[in-house]
């Protein structure tokens, strides 16, 4: 490191190259700056990190252990090795719950995304009273889920419900909705989509408004039609927002619990039982916390894999 403030060094000096404190009072050495920045960084991150460690990281690590034990929440867990994992393979209720979760996600994610995106594009245009319609679309998200489920349950009533009375105009072969093993899941998906589309619409709308209007003008001048403008301008510009929406939507769908709990309680039979509810049941109805942890590990792995795939795909597309 140089010692004197030679003219040649004056440029680097501003970058903290090597000027001595006695020459430049109030300035710090690079090591001191690095240390200060580090401490400031740590100070900022500590509250959040501590919360994360104690409320998330440690419990999750403990969960890995409990998943291999037999434990009723009392006394100490008894290590049972892979017994719980073997049970999973023979557990028909678990299999039902697993496939129900996949079924729900596979239908719910694209449906919600399409509707939310459609609404966002529509309400981003210069529509009369669009503030009103935005509020209306967002409304379902802020209503109480228990109250909403009650109202929908009445609407879905196979005999006296409004939905079947309307469908009765067109067909005699009416679905049994919540009382039927075939139709209960579609009914749940309809309500979930209705509830969440508005929320994701707001997120997408925020994304749409960051797209510079010059891009559209340029595309228009080049003779692109509305459809081309959508695919060549809107979608690429929306990639970060879409990625965020996809990830939260996916994780939310795999973790669905509240809606099935209040609408159908997993029924009829096990036709709307999802993984999160199965975890809840095994843990709290059957006091089998070890096995419940095993099932929740599967749910965790499922969310993890799908999210990693999405990250990988997004990174590949960005390059």
């Amino acid at each position, binding site marked *: 490191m140089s010692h004197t403030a030679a003219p040649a060094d004056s440029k680097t000096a501003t970058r903290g190259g090597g000027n001595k404190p006695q020459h430049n009072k109030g300035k710090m050495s690079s090591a001191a700056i690095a240390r200060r920045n580090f401490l400031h960084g740590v100070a900022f991150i500590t509250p959040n990190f501590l919360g994360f460690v104690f409320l998330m990281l440690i419990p999750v690590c403990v969960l890995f252990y409990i998943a291999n034990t037999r434990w009723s929440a*009392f006394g100490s867990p008894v290590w049972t090795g892979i017994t719980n994992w073997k049970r999973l393979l023979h557990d028909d209720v678990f299999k039902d719950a697993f496939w129900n979760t996949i079924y729900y996600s596979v239908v719910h994610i694209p449906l919600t995304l399409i509707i939310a995106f459609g609404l966002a594009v529509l309400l981003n245009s210069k529509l009369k009273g669009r503030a009103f319609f935005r509020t209306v679309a967002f409304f379902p998200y802020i209503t109480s889920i228990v109250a909403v489920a009650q109202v929908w349950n009445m609407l879905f009533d*196979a005999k006296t419900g409004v939905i079947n009375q309307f469908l009765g105009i067109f067909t005699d072969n009416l679905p049994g909705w919540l009382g039927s093993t075939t139709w209960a899941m579609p009914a749940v998906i309809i309500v979930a989509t209705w509830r969440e589309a508005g929320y994701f619409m707001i997120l997408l709308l925020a994304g749409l408004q960051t797209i510079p209007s010059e891009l559209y003008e340029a595309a228009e001048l080049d003779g692109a039609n509305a459809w081309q403008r959508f695919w060549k301008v809107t979608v690429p510009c929306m990639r970060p927002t879409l990625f965020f929406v996809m990830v939260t939507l996916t994780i939310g769908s795999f973790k669905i619990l509240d809606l099935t709990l209040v609408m159908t309680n997993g029924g009829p039979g096990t036709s709307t039982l999802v993984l999160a509810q199965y975890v809840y049941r095994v843990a709290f109805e059957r006091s089998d916390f070890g096995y419940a942890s095993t099932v929740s590990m599967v749910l965790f792995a499922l969310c993890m894999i799908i999210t990693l795939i999405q990250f990988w795909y997004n990174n590949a597309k960005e390059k």
Partner: protein
Amino acid sequence: MKLNRVFKAVAVASVLGLALTGCGGGGDSAASSGSDSFDKNAKTEITFAGWSLSSTPEFQTLADAFMAKYPNVKVNVKEYSADDYDKQLTADISSGSQPDVFPIKNLQKYYTYSQSGGLADLADIASTYKSDKNIDISNYELDGKYYAMPYRQDSWVLFYNKDMMEKAGVATPDGTWTWDDYTKAAEELKDKLPAAGYDANSVYPIYQHNWQSVVQAFALAQTGYKPDTNFFKAKFDYMKPFYQRALKWQDEKLTIDWNTSNTTSVQYQAQFGTQKAAMMPMGTWYAATLVKQQKSGDADQFTWGIAPIPQNPDSKTKSDKPVTFGDPTGLAVSSKATGQKLAAAKEFVKFCAGEGSAEALAKIATTPAYFSDNVAKTYFSVDGMATDDLTKQAWQEHDTKPENPVGEGSDTIISLLKDAHSSIMTETSNVNDALAKATQNIKDQGLVTE
């Protein structure tokens, strides 16, 4: 030791956190030293868990009655959530912070709790009541040990609306009915109620509530109650005739169908209380609600009565008392309590199981576990209570089997039978298939070994 406790607390919190939010707070179980026999002059404070205190006066009633008898003992009632009581209690017991005295809501979780090490053995109290014919404590016996004592013993009876049945000209229950007689009366009501001025679209002869116990627990109790040879062996054939009857009632539209009842959360209180059903099997706790609702106007004014629950028409053995089911509600003492605190807690539990507290409970129309003539007199002097002889007989004389058999795996079996119940009653699966599936699932959980 300490690390172990922290570990357990973290583990419970993690599982709770995954499925739910938060868990109950701690209580105090600070030990005090002293002799183990109860000294009524010693200043002692004990904590006592209860739920929904504003609408469930029984906990404060018990505490007040005890404090009136022993003024030096202070019973602090601690509020828990009614719906999440078992979850909160589980978290408390596993971290060793359970209250000194706490209720065991029903028998489903009793076995799990008894194995937790958090409950004190109450054998000395049991010896007081073992040979008392006014109270039945046998449901809490586990290999000669008792971890709880009953203070309430509700049992299922048949509620009926005398006005509706008399207007329609259908004979009211006479105490000898089987389920076939019940079905016949319901069919007759179906024909005659519209002519008596009741709306055929909204008024039904009976109301069959959507709980699994309304079919399954009657089946278990009325086929000889042999859980060790059928229930715990996952052999559910004994339920079949009971399910066939339940399906017949719903197919003939004698009751609101299960689906509607379940998806629209029909309140059984409203169904019977607003005269939408003329007969309804329900637990004796409903009498207190009905009395209260008739006073407040939430229920219509009509004359009602209680009859013994209809009996199994296929039963080979005749019991001298009507066989029904119902779980006792019990009180347990924390194993963390010591010295005078433990002695006071035990004395409190002993008091709650006895005649003194039974009368206090009867005064607020709650069915206690101790059925003496004095208690019956108090119960039926409650203003608004039905007082005919059949009602009194139905309330006092019955052979009540547990709703939930006590043993290892019972909560898992009950949980899987709940799925079967929903499949059968929505008629998405026939009785044989649904029960066979339940059997298979129970075997797959490793609960039944052959």
